[in-house]
């Protein structure tokens, strides 16, 4: 059985359709990434899956429980943590763990064992008596994850868990997520960082409330199978982009730092040549020009651009 089964899930707020006919499955132990621009419907979907928001139509089975029917029972099977996860800042690490454990009905030896687990996982041994407010961002976030895992949920929802955290802490955090997945925990994670999405087994991209694409990174990149992406480095990328946008061979362009990615139509025979000549003719100084493998960012921009 799948950990999460979503079928024709929709949610309307008045006339606004926040989530529109969403269907997907998440397998046990899978790290499932949820990408989408702000307002694409990610948060609404997660709130429905967590039992906080009633679906307007469709069903979602999370951990074997129908969230529309038994929203309270879902809560015992899931852990939830977000960037906005707020520990009680004036309470100590230990007191926060005790409180969140109590919220999930933990006590006695089980609470003690889970406390040890959370402290160890967050790397906070010896700091049990520090107040949460005294912890640096990365630690605080690992403690938050530990608190969300106290009741050993088989499914964990992470809503932009790494927002506002330094890159090193982010890497440590993803190592924890990989470990959870290895232990059989299903992880559904939303993120704005596309490099993080590479950790996911499968990725769903949402746009305007709909599921715009779903698959592993490799599967998603296949949308470029019959198209070529050419990376153009130029001293003035904006000028280069203006020239490229006019060319019939170019489907679209996007800026990647100091370079421009141009997606060429399938029929283009000599991709580099087709771009180099017009750029030179327009007087744009080109540093380098070469075909590249599509990145997840190319995929995301392509999918979202097409959906909207």
């Amino acid at each position, binding site marked *: 059985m799948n950990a999460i089964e979503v079928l024709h899930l929709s949610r309307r707020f008045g006339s606004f359709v926040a989530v529109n006919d969403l269907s997907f499955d998440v397998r046990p132990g899978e790290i499932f990434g949820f990408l989408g621009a702000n307002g694409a419907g990610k948060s609404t979907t997660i709130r429905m899956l967590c039992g906080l928001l009633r679906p307007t139509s469709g069903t979602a089975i999370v951990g074997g429980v129908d969230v529309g029917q038994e929203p309270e029972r879902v809560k015992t099977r899931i852990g*939830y943590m977000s960037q906005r996860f707020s520990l009680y800042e004036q309470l100590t690490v230990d007191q926060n763990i005790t409180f969140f454990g109590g919220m999930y*009905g933990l006590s006695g030896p089980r609470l003690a064992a889970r406390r040890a687990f959370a402290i160890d996982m967050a790397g906070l041994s010896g700091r049990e008596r520090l107040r949460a407010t005294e912890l640096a961002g990365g630690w605080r976030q690992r403690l938050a994850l530990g608190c969300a895992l106290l009741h050993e949920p088989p499914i964990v929802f992470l809503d932009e868990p790494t927002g506002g955290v330094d890159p090193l802490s982010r890497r440590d955090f993803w190592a924890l997520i990989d470990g959870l997945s290895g232990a059989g925990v299903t992880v559904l994670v939303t993120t704005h960082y596309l490099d993080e999405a590479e950790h996911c087994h499968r990725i769903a991209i949402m746009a305007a409330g709909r599921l715009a694409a779903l698959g592993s990174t490799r599967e998603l990149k296949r949308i470029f199978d019959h198209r070529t992406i050419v990376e153009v480095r130029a001293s003035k990328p904006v000028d280069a982009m203006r020239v490229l946008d006019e060319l019939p061979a170019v489907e679209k362009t996007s800026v990647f730092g100091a370079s421009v990615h141009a997606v060429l139509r399938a029929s283009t025979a000599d991709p580099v040549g087709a771009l180099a000549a017009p750029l030179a003719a327009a007087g744009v100084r080109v540093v380098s020009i070469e075909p590249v493998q599509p990145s997840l960012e190319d995929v995301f921009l392509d999918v979202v651009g097409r959906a909207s």
Partner: protein
Amino acid sequence: MIGGRAGAVARKELRQIVRDTRTLLILLFLPAFFLLLFGYALSWDIRHVPLAVDDRDRSAESRTLIDAFVRSGYFSLVADLRSPTELDTLMDRNEIRAALVIPQGFAHDLLRGQAAPIQILLNGDNANTATTIMGYAMSIVQAESARRAPPSLEGTSPLVRVESRIWYNPQLRSALFLVPGLIAYIAMITAVVSTALSVVREKERNTVEQIRMAPIGSAAFLVGKTVPYFFISLVAQLGIVLVAMTLFGLPMRGSWWLLLVALSLFLIGALGLGLLVSSVADSQQLAFQIAILASFLPTLMLSGFIFPIASMPPFLQALTYLVPARYFLVALRGIFLKGLTLPAVWIELAALAAYAVVVLTLASVRLRRQWS
């Protein structure tokens, strides 16, 4: 101890209260501060009125009368006048508020059983005070002349005589009247403000989101959050009662159990109002302002604490029926001063219970709607 998840919330709340100086101040320091401030400053009693005496008789009888004024405690002798002009100066400088002039021949008239006139001069710039001082002076003089009336003259006294006696608070000390009001006032402010702030703080810091994700119902959460405040406030109230008994001589003539019931019902209503405020406000600052307005003003103005309800215009009188402190005050004064028992105060207690039920219902409906 309440068990399970509500218990976990309550224990967490207690830890936060202990850590949070602001809440502790509101809960413990504020009541003590108010009690001392109002207890000592808020008094309508007029005592130790500075008095000058112009004794032109200089007899044993005149000294006895002056002594009666001083012994009463209402007057303090500050000047013994030698000339009438001295009196004007003292009165102008506000060094005295009253003067007693005993004319020559006072003792002579008294001993002959004749009417012996004396003069009392009062500063009338504050009419209320002057009237009260006049009342004190009259009663002292009456008591003195009654003491001196020869037995043979008893038959000539009027047939109908008023023997006034004031019950429950014979000295008409305003502290006894005010302290119950003070208890209501302080309970209302601390309970409403502290609960409102504690719930809104969870909204403001977004910790409430995490709690909504947990398998705990809104009812258990609210119970867990308010129970610590209930007990802390109750302890604070009992502390105020004990302090009022020692410092202000508040008598406790009724049952402690009944007092506890009245305090509890009133506090539950106040906590409910705090929850209701928290459902309206999204920031601690706003919550604080609304809570102060909703608790402080009606309790101060419309409860009969300071302004007698009977002398309010009808429209305001009608409004007082919605103020829980109104009933609480009647119940408290009844229990403390009159030693009333349940049959005499059940209506007030029922009104308090009804208020608590209504406010709690409103608050939980609103909060539950916000919850999901």
